[in-house]
């Protein structure tokens, strides 16, 4: 499909594709097997400027928007969805600062991320606050010119690896979500520590850890936006980032299709390549059709956001929901086409099937996405009377 990209968008896509195919693909299986965070993040994404794709030029980035970021994420995910997670989580981590941070915070924290010198992570989820993000318990108590953070964040992507943590914590616990605020905490701050690294089903090249705050004292200047804005900042961050999960799912699904297609052409049974059997050919046709539909929705949503739309929570949720469900189905079908070989870890598609599952769960489960969409439908219909 022709998506009429600008020259710059094509350039970003081509370069991300090169990095993905020449550098990431050869090590993807090994990173998965060893559950290893890639030490080459800076080389892959810093030295090529890909880290700065979604960062404004005044903070050292390339000034691209959500679409440009999605193009990069999609290509990276084609080679390894786990690496794509680490890449996208970095962008998610600085998003609160880009959306609500002071000029000084942007210069200090966003610039090194754009250069790939520092990594970021976003800390919202807690053990008792997953889908119900408003139930967080981590607190930030004001003490003169400082805040003191206490609490444990769970399942933090890039946890332990990141240098910069944006954290949602309660400054007025009695107000619930309205009492939440956003802070930026640097690695190495006394009172910031990391729990165990989670053992995951998929996206095993990405690091997922507990981030623990124990009397963690930070200057009041580390507050992002104003007190009480934390929850709104978190929701705006997620609304902007969700198409990125959609793009990750599209890249993953395309990777699964490409591998299944190549296999179906080469695998001979009953004296013929299996692609000549309609049962297989139709599976491939359905996979391709679903992927193209998901891609079109992700790109359209990204373009809507980049064009300055005010309200895009619904579209953003739809893109994430649809693309991740497609990725799961396509990955399962890819394994089916590979047959017994698909079940073996020597072949690439079982990894994609394991990797696909998380896209239906994280950054808001697909059930939560449906809630968001339904709420918006209700609101729109009430407005019309």
């Amino acid at each position, binding site marked *: 499909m022709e998506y009429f990209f600008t020259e710059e968008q094509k350039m970003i896509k081509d*370069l991300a594709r090169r990095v993905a195919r020449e550098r990431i693909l050869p090590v993807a299986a090994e990173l998965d097997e060893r559950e290893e965070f890639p030490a080459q993040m800076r080389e892959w994404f810093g*030295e090529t*400027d890909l880290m*700065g794709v979604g960062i404004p030029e005044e903070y050292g980035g390339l000034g691209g928007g959500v679409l440009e970021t999605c193009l990069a994420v999609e290509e990276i995910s084609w080679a390894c969805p786990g690496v794509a997670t680490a890449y996208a989580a970095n962008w998610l981590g600085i998003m609160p600062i880009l959306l609500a941070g002071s000029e000084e915070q942007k210069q200090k924290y966003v610039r090194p991320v754009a250069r790939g010198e520092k990594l970021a992570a976003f800390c919202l989820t807690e053990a008792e606050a997953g889908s119900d993000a408003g139930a967080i318990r981590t607190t930030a108590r004001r003490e003169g010119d400082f805040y003191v953070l206490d609490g444990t964040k769970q399942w933090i992507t890039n946890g332990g690896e990141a240098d910069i943590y944006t954290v949602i914590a309660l400054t007025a616990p009695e107000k619930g979500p309205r009492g939440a605020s956003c802070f930026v905490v640097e690695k190495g701050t006394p009172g910031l520590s990391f729990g165990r690294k989670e053992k995951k089903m998929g996206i095993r090249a990405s690091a997922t850890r507990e981030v623990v705050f124990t009397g963690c004292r930070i200057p009041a200047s580390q507050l992002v936006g104003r007190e009480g804005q934390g929850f709104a900042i978190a929701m705006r961050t997620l609304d902007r980032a969700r198409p990125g999960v959609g793009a990750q799912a599209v890249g993953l699904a395309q990777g699964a299709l490409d591998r299944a297609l190549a296999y179906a052409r080469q695998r001979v049974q009953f004296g013929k390549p299996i692609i000549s059997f309609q049962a297989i050919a139709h599976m491939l046709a359905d996979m391709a059709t679903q992927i193209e539909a998901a891609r079109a929705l992700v790109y359209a949503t990204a373009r809507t956001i980049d064009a300055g739309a005010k309200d895009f929570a619904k579209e953003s949720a739809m893109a994430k929901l649809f693309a991740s469900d497609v990725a799961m189905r396509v990955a399962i079908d890819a394994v089916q086409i590979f047959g017994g070989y698909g079940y073996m870890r020597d072949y690439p598609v079982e990894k994609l099937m394991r990797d696909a599952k998380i896209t239906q769960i994280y950054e808001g489960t697909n059930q939560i996405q449906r809630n968001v969409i339904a709420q918006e439908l209700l609101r729109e219909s009430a407005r019309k009377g």
Partner: protein
Amino acid sequence: MKVIVLIKQVPETTEVRINPETNTLVREGVKGIINPFDTYALEEGVRIKERLGGTVVVVSMGPPQAREALQDAIALGADEAVLLSDRAFAGADTLATSRALAAAVRKLEPYDLIICGKQAIDGDTAQVGPEVAELLDIPHVTYVRRIRELEPGRVVVERMVEGAVETVEMSLPGLITVVKDINQPRIPSLKGIMKARRAAIPVWTPADVGISEELVGLRGSPTVVEKVFVPQVERRGEILEGSPREVAEALLSRLEALGVR
């Protein structure tokens, strides 16, 4: 430190096809790339600049579309690029090519080091590097796999020879040709690619580099390619049967009959 890197644009190897009628390379629609061995030369030049400061100038001779290869070189970190392109340069063999490149290098003097890939993947001659050095009357070392020491006026390199590695010290200015063991070429950065698009790449003619048209291109080439063809392989196998003794005797008498002693 000023480093000059000589590069060649070649057809993407995976796409090379020969027209069976004319026995010539099908160039239409084939993407041009920097000769893979030259990418190691360029990477080494850029690393020298990053380590010691200075500039990297890339020179290529070729048709106008070779500009793309030079743009790629700028995206990968070269500071300047020059294209030698003119009808008079066309049809050059390695000597005529080396004369043109040497003339361009003279125009870029002073310089410290010239780096070339060990050979081009299309011609495979490995002659241009050493010829340029001879024409410039500077020393050269081929098949370099590592630069051990580098300072103004002097370089120490490791060179691959069959079954061994030679360490060679050479005075500068000089020329080296490099093998792929020397480094892993980087992928360009987005800012590099954007810079390359805007870069001015001057095009030099024989007159610009002060060389007679008689010495370059087809007219300056002593090599004449009479014919390029795909060899017809006509192998016939024969299997001798019998006991080992019988087979050995049969083979011996067959070889004797063929005059093998």
